[in-house]
């Protein structure tokens, strides 16, 4: 008996708005406990929710990126249950009418590129944070009320690789649209996986197991693969899969039982009476989408079509929003796309990997990098010299030109590089060539001077003179 896996993913994304979803308290990460709260976050009696406009705009942007139908009215519901991290004893969410429905995304895995449908996307609020100790728990309400969007896929994913790609694609969307830092390891992107197996070709669903506590995209694939294998073994041995919640244990590289799923909880959903439904105008929706930062897939096309990068180069860039931002800045500053792309995937990437840092704190900002790259472009320094200069620039705040001068790189003795400059100068000064041919020696001086000017005085004068003469003779 061969089984196929039926996998659905539920992703929660913490938004990086400035204030909370239904509370005007500031959104902060990693600040001192209970230092970013207002009475409403601790559910003081008489406090009332107010809807964060930016959170709505953000949700619209993600809905659009996922090709979803956007509800023109925003309705909210109460999800009622008691838990220590839920101050009101209910969560304000969207049960009946999620802001987005019927979307899709493409993932690539063992079966090639496949469309995965997305059931819904809705707005809700985060819970408080708990710190567990031996015989007590401490509550920090800073996180309580932070805006969340929840994205639920149809159970159409089949493998760990597909699942990982799905999460990666969602992460790309939420980071490129700038609504979240999208970091699984920090909890700003959380992924729960629902997995069941059934005989290949069957239509009825098998028993579903929920897997939580997955803290990286790699672990998404690992957790899913492990769970598929585990359930496979259970079924093949003639037993039943138990409906339960399991957590992925990073150390053991296994899913471990957490708790049995009892009868599904009755949340007694009803419409939130303190939030009057908001009617979204067409203009509001269109503006939200039009002002959205460029999506990765859009950049990808643009880098290839307009900037002439290869698929490979473009795909390397879009792996991270920050890399694209750096790249876009270089291009805006006049650096040719190919050169910018090469340096990002080459020297810069090496440095970042070796030092385990991200490009956001890379010490060379785009403006200095652009200066360096323009020196190469102008032929002022060679590629090798540029790489040396790069290393020095990491430690210094001087401009590349200043550094080059200090390091005695000023003189360009690279014959190949100088030859390029000489050729350019000659091509641009045909009159001077004629003059020289006509016997005016001063034309030689003039041309050499042009070479010196072009190399900002850094060309080896002797070599420059020699090359100019050499080339003149050829013409």
């Amino acid at each position: 008996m061969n089984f196929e896996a039926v996998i659905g993913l539920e992703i929660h994304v913490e938004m990086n708005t400035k204030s909370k979803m239904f509370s005007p308290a500031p959104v902060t990460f990693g600040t001192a406990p209970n230092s970013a709260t207002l009475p409403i976050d601790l559910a003081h009696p008489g406090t009332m929710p107010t809807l964060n406009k930016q959170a709505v705009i953000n949700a619209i942007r993600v809905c659009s990126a996922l090709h979803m139908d956007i509800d023109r009215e925003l309705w909210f519901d109460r999800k009622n249950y008691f838990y220590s991290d839920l101050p009101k004893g209910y969560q304000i969410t969207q049960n009946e009418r999620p802001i987005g429905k019927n979307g899709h995304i493409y993932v690539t895995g063992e079966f090639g590129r496949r469309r995965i449908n997305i059931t819904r996307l809705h707005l809700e609020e985060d819970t408080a944070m708990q710190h567990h100790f031996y015989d007590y728990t401490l509550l920090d309400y800073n996180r309580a009320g932070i805006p969340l969007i929840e994205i639920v896929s149809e159970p159409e994913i089949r493998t760990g690789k597909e699942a990982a790609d799905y999460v990666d694609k969602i992460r790309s969307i939420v980071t490129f649209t700038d609504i979240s830092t999208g970091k699984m390891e920090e909890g700003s992107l959380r992924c729960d996986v629902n997995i069941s197996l059934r005989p290949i070709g069957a239509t009825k669903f098998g028993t579903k197991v929920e897997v939580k506590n997955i803290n990286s995209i790699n672990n998404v694939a690992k957790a899913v693969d492990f769970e598929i294998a585990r359930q496979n073994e259970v079924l093949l041995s003639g037993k039943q899969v138990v409906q339960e919640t399991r957590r992925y244990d990073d150390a053991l590289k296994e899913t471990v039982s957490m708790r049995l799923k009892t009868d599904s909880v009755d949340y007694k959903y009803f419409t939130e009476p303190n939030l009057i439904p908001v009617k979204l105008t067409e203009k509001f929706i269109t503006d939200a989408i039009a002002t959205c930062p460029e999506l990765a897939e859009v950049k990808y096309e643009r880098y290839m079509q307009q900037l002439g990068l290869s698929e490979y180069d473009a795909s390397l860039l879009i792996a991270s929003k920050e890399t694209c931002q750096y790249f876009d800045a270089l291009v805006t500053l006049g650096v040719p796309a190919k050169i910018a792309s090469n340096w990002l995937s080459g020297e810069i990437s090496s440095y970042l990997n070796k030092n385990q840092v991200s490009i956001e704190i890379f010490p060379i900002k785009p403006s200095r990098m652009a200066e360096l790259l323009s020196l190469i472009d102008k032929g002022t320094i060679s590629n090798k010299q540029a790489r040396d200069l790069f290393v020095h620039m990491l430690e210094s705040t001087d401009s590349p030109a200043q550094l080059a001068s200090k390091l005695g790189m000023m003189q360009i003795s690279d014959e190949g590089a100088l030859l390029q400059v000489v050729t350019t100068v000659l091509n641009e000064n045909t009159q001077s060539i004629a003059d020289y041919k006509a016997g005016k020696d001063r034309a030689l001086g003039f041309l050499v001077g042009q070479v010196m000017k072009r190399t900002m005085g850094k060309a080896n004068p002797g070599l420059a003179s020699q090359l100019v003469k050499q080339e003149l003779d050829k013409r």
Partner: protein
Amino acid sequence: MSYLDLTIKEIHEALVARLVTPIELVKEALERAKANTDNAFEIILEQEALAQAAMLLEPEVDNMLWGIPYVAKDNFSTKDIPTTGGSNILTGYVPLFDATVITRLKEKHAILIGKTTLDELAMGGTGKSGHKGKTFNPYDKTKQRMIGGSSSGSAAAVCAGIVPFALGSDTGDSVRKPASYAGLVGMKPTWGRISRYGLFPFAPSLDHVGFLTRSAYDAALVLNALAKSDKYDATCSDTPAIDYTNSINQPIAGKRIAIIEEIVKSKHRPEVIKAFEAIVEQLKNDGAIVTIVKFRRDLLEAIFPIYITISCAEATSNAANLDGIKFGPATWGTTYEDAMRNARTAGFSELIKRRFVIGSYALLRENQEVLFLRAQKGRRLIVEELNKIYQDHDLILAPAAPSIAPKFEDKTDQLSDEYLIADNHLVLGNFGGFPGVTLPLGKLNDMPFGIHVMGRPFEEGLVLAASQAIENHTGLRNMIAPKEVNL
């Protein structure tokens, strides 16, 4: 006679004329508060009130509430002042913020002299269920009669002449019913007209901030101060408010008044109906056009179950934050659930618990369709019927209650089969958010009874105008219960 026994309007004139000062008013109000035996107060704010009054030296001619003492029901959040909601689960709770209406009144330099008793968490109509016990009706010195609820203490304070106005809340009739029993003007404006931010919620879709005064004009004054938009309350309207002391003077000639036949024909004391009919005649003489209209009986008989279902369901959810963890008397247990259970078991009264179970039951997945959602459907049918009436009429008039204030022994909080349309129709104003005013109609055995005027959303001006017209006919303005006689 003291200036404190006057209406706000009259006290203001005296303040401006420097015949009396805020300190003098507040001192007297505090004395009366302390001497009062009707159990109207959760807390009396002597120091705070005197301190505020001491700062008011220059009367503000255009500010009618300047220096006026008032009280607020203890379900309004008051910064640094313990607020209990009438429940032991909030004993010791000290809010960090003022309700918006408290802020507005502070800005007007009205002076809060105390927080008043209420049915626990505003969920009752007898004034019996608050954690401080029964609140009595100042009109009955034998202390056998209730003043109703849930705004019991607020009604008692105004009725006893302690202050000329009080804040209350009205979810099913909790300002307008006590007003009837206490000979007061009780106003519940349109839903969303006044911000609910800081009002402990009972059932948000039915909750209204309301207030009690002793004249229709005073009600207009208070409404002027409170009818404003509020960015902290998403349900608070930004429909521009008007000057209600202006619109209160509009003539009611030509206005169309509807009287719902099934309501007036339901069981009332004959004296109440007689007084009601007399007033109706006088309004006709004023030029109002009065029509008897029919209302579907099956809907009227469903009013109470619709109300109890929706309000208990919303209330159960609202009260889920009351767990002893963030505020309220400290609690512990072997598990967090135990800790919460201990707090809630000890903190809630038995009545409230029963109401919560009802509310929770109605929301259960297997019951929602048939109970909660049907109640909400019933609400829509009722409101649609009322809107039909308002297409052809401007106001709906009815007696506010079937009789005078009941005796405690005659009225229980337990749900009973005895059902009176006459006792339950005020909640029509909550279902549709319609503005309503109860004002004195007459007296029977020295106990007051009232009449109720209800209008279209945001037409408070007309409702107040009709109220004032009625007041001019009855002459029952500024009624204060006879003072205690010292033997």
